[in-house]
């Protein structure tokens, strides 16, 4: 049972962190709970579908279907996070002003909630399909099923608790800093996803360059431990990164910074106001 708990918990940590960050980043927006719930629901549905067609997906593209799907899902999430960052840079100042006046009418429609819903959905889809397959294996396995299933359920619950922890942890940051903090978190999140995506492309045999390992910090901070996993999601920590992963990571961070800078409307005209 404990084994099942740990496996499921480890799989849901990443999605849990992302949901926590999205919830914190959208604080004060009416109806955001529904948006995030919709993302989780769609992601779960998607996870079920991916699990159902796991064999077909695995066999697609000369056996690289799974890797290509993972790379696409991660790539799409990166694009959505970039869109969100650009939008926030453009409208962030007015948003911050509205946040100060508590309860000010911040209409959900103005904010690209869809981008964040997609990010949540994709995170749940990617991690969830493995959980679904694992639990299916338990069910199909027979005898020790019920206790393992209980472990799986407890693992999910632990993941949800972790989401809550992330969310309330971020909430303790003063409102006037929360946009800056979540913007940085989202940029790091996206950079880590991009680094993961290129590794999947490498595993799929699509990319075959810069595959040399840069360093190995696994003896000090293993990526498959709990702390390593959390850092992996949060800042894209990788214990054995390849050159290409570092390039993708830095390129995404640079792109995010550039977007945040360029999207600010007419910087020059701000001064007189």
């Amino acid at each position, binding site marked *: 049972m404990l084994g099942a708990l740990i496996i499921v918990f480890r799989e849901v940590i990443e999605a849990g962190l992302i949901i926590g960050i999205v919830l914190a980043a959208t604080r004060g927006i009416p109806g955001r709970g529904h948006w995030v719930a919709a993302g989780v629901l769609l992601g779960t549905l998607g996870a079920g579908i991916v699990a159902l067609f796991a064999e077909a997906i695995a066999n697609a593209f000369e*056996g690289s279907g799974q890797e290509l799907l993972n790379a696409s899902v991660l790539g799409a999430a990166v694009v959505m996070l970039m869109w969100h960052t650009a939008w926030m840079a453009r409208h962030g100042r007015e948003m911050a002003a509205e946040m100060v006046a508590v309860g000010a009418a911040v209409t959900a429609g103005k904010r690209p909630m869809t981008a964040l819903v997609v990010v949540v959905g994709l995170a749940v889809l990617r991690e969830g399909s493995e959980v679904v397959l694992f639990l299916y294996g338990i069910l199909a396995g027979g005898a020790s099923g019920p206790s393992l299933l209980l472990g799986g359920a407890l693992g999910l619950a632990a993941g949800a608790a972790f989401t809550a922890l992330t969310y309330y942890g971020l909430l303790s940051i003063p409102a006037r800093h929360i946009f800056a903090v979540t913007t940085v978190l989202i940029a790091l999140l996206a950079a880590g996803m991009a680094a993961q995506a290129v590794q999947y492309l490498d595993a799929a045999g699509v990319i075959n360059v810069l595959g040399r390992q840069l360093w190995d910090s*696994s003896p000090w901070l293993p990526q498959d431990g709990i702390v390593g996993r959390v850092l992996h999601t949060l800042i894209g920590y990788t214990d054995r990164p390849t050159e290409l992963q570092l390039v993708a990571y830095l390129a995404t961070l640079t792109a995010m910074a550039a977007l945040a800078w360029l999207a600010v409307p007419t910087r020059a005209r701000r001064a007189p106001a």
Partner: protein
Amino acid sequence: MLVAALGMPSAQALAQEFNLVIRNHKFEPQELRVPAGKRVSIYVSNEDPTPEEFESATLKVEKVIPGKSKGLVRIGPLAPGRYEFIGEFNADTAKGVVIAE
């Protein structure tokens, strides 16, 4: 020299192939010797009815192989050494190691 350089990509593209079987939540063989410094393709055949996840942090692989089906795992080029892998869904029994030499 030039011919050798031109010949390189095609030689590299032809990854060496190896086979691995999952049976009763165990890998057979548990030890796989592969050439160092080359791309290697491992065909993992899961003969169990349940899905398995071939996972290795050192090999940078995380791949689900559904029950009663085959999966292709591409690794390398590897530096000489031992690279452990597990079947994450049955980590107690499904263990193995790739030895690059």
